[in-house]
């Protein structure tokens, strides 16, 4: 489906962007392009520079150096900034709105700031707040507050939507609902700039992922590109296979490891590795609990690139 408003060209172009606080570079010379209609995920631990980048792109902060254009408008130009603010929707990380206004009242408050926009009733339905339309903001649960935040970010029918950590602090159910919403945005043809510290989220939602660490982009590409490049190989796990399975598979496959709990891990390097291994196991009638084929994930990508893991946003 081609949207008539959509024009060719990038939604966001960033070149050598730098943001310094004193001597500390929160953003250290990053460059990337976000195509129209794609979901672009900015992934990294807390303090990596994700929010700073978003705040520079939506003209909340001034950059120290480098350049950036959003929808073709220069972020350093005053008139460009107004055009950007008219055309983008923002869900700030620490979003809040008026406590004593209802869902509907909050939406119409923000709707009035724009010349054109989306019908409020439709927005309420879109984010699934129909039953809560007349509930005060302060009485909403965390997940519902985030949904209203998304609705407010969409109130001007924006071309680009910035979502700064939309799922942080949500329970698993609310997180999945949020994923559905974001996928819906993509179907509507909107460009989504998403930041997150959840690797699985980026893998599921994003067309393009940029991994940011200490203000620098350390890898960028589609999730499958990144995984095949940095994620390592697929592994066959023979649970509770023990030393006999270890011995058997070592003859066929080049990299086999016996874990302390008896699991045997074999790295699958060629396409034929998996059928051969299974054939050997069934021929010898080896005993084991379960066979698992584990593909590498974005988490492996990050681990391989940085040697560290992200747990709840923090580096470990």
């Amino acid at each position, binding site marked *: 489906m081609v949207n008539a408003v959509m024009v060719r060209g990038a939604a966001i172009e960033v070149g050598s962007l730098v943001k310094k606080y004193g001597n500390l570079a929160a953003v250290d010379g990053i460059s990337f392009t976000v195509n129209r209609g794609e979901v672009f995920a900015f992934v990294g631990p807390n303090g990596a520079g994700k929010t700073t980048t978003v*705040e520079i792109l*939506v*003209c*909340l*902060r*001034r950059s120290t150096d480098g350049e950036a254009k959003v929808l073709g408008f220069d972020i350093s130009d005053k008139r460009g900034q*107004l055009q950007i*603010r*008219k055309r*983008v929707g*923002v869900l*700030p990380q*620490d*979003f*809040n*709105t*008026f406590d004593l206004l209802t869902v509907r009242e909050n939406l119409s408050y*923000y709707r009035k*700031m*724009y010349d054109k926009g989306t019908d409020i009733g439709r927005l309420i339905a879109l984010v699934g707040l129909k039953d809560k339309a007349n509930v005060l903001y302060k009485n909403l649960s965390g997940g519902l507050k985030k949904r209203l935040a998304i609705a*407010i970010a969409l109130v*001007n029918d924006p071309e680009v939507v910035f979502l700064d950590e939309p799922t942080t602090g949500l329970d698993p159910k609310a997180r999945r609902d949020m994923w559905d919403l974001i996928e819906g945005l993509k179907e509507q043809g909107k460009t989504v700039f998403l930041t997150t510290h959840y690797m699985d989220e980026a893998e599921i939602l994003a067309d393009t992922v940029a991994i940011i660490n200490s203000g620098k982009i350390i890898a960028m590409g589609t999730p499958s590109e990144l995984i095949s490049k940095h994620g390592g190989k697929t592994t066959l796990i023979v649970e509770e296979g023990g030393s006999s399975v270890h011995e058997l598979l070592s003859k066929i496959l080049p990299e086999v490891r016996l874990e302390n709990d008896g699991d045997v891990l074999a790295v699958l390097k060629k396409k034929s590795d998996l059928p051969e291994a299974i054939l050997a196991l069934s021929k010898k009638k080896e005993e084991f609990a379960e066979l698992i084929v584990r593909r590498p994930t974005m988490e492996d990508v990050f681990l391989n690139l940085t040697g560290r893991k992200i747990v709840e946003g923090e580096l470990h």
Partner: protein
Amino acid sequence: MWFRSKHTIFWTLAFPILLMLLFGAIFSVSQNPSFNLHVQNRDLANGEPTQLSKSLYDTMNGTGILNLQLVDSEENTTQYIEENGIQRMLIIPQGFHNSCLTNNASIILKLVPPEVDTASATVKRVVEQMVEIFNIAVTEQNPLKAVTIEDQSIISESYSFIDFFVPGLIGMTLMTSGIFGAIGWNTRNRELGILKKLATTPLSKLEWIIGVVLYEFVMGAISTVIILGIGVLVFNLKVMPNIYSLILIISGAVAFPGIGMVIAHFVKESDSADAAGNAITFPMMFLSGTFFPLEFMPDFLQQIAKFLPLTYLSNGLRDSMVYGNVQSALFNTAVMLGVAAFFIALGALITNWREE
């Protein structure tokens, strides 16, 4: 925790320091206060004051407490008082000199009722004492009273204390609700991150400031109606705002939130919002003549009062509501509107939504 926030420290310290300096200055007046008294001497002979009328004038002038201002003998006093917003006037009638000699002279003292105005009460006492001294001098220890004082109220209505108090109260309420309201609203929304979200929309700073000012204006209007309502229902209030004082109330209800928006720029945490509001409003409350007549204060405080917006709002409201002085109302309205425009523009200029 408290000492780690520079803003909170500043505003918390500013309040007691200002308050202490203020009251110290008010109550440690070393020189005697002086009070204006307009004098019209109608007892002229060949264009010169008669001997005894001049002598009475000199006696009054010798106290150092009364600051006499001579009014031309041709002036219509009623008109003069109204046009110039005069609160106290002494009239020496024609034929005073001759009447003195026959022990039946009288002078007219026009005052705001002393029961409602401490300055008037003081002036009245001083005039009475001076007349007694004058009597003794004129009659050479004759116990007869040569001169008597005829009291006249400067206002036609029979107003009571509440009528004089209410205009000041309205001014004070507009100030406190405007300043506290604007500071509180702004700091709370900044802390909650709502200002940040608003900064990502096309809403401009000026629109936001005008929005807050209008909101506080409505609050101020409601307070004014409540004050007047309770005044009428419970205390038999007689003064009512005329069209001029209404304009003045509106200008005040817009000016003070404007000031609040500028102060809000310097208040970063909601912890210090109240301290900042107090530090700004308390000195204004006491220096504007709402509680103590300005004449009781040392000169330098009277000078400071000239720079406080509340002085103009209170004076204008009292002059228009109690004395029906239109000119004063218009002048003070102009000052308040100027203050409003200045602070709203300044607020729009210095308010910083985008962070560095």
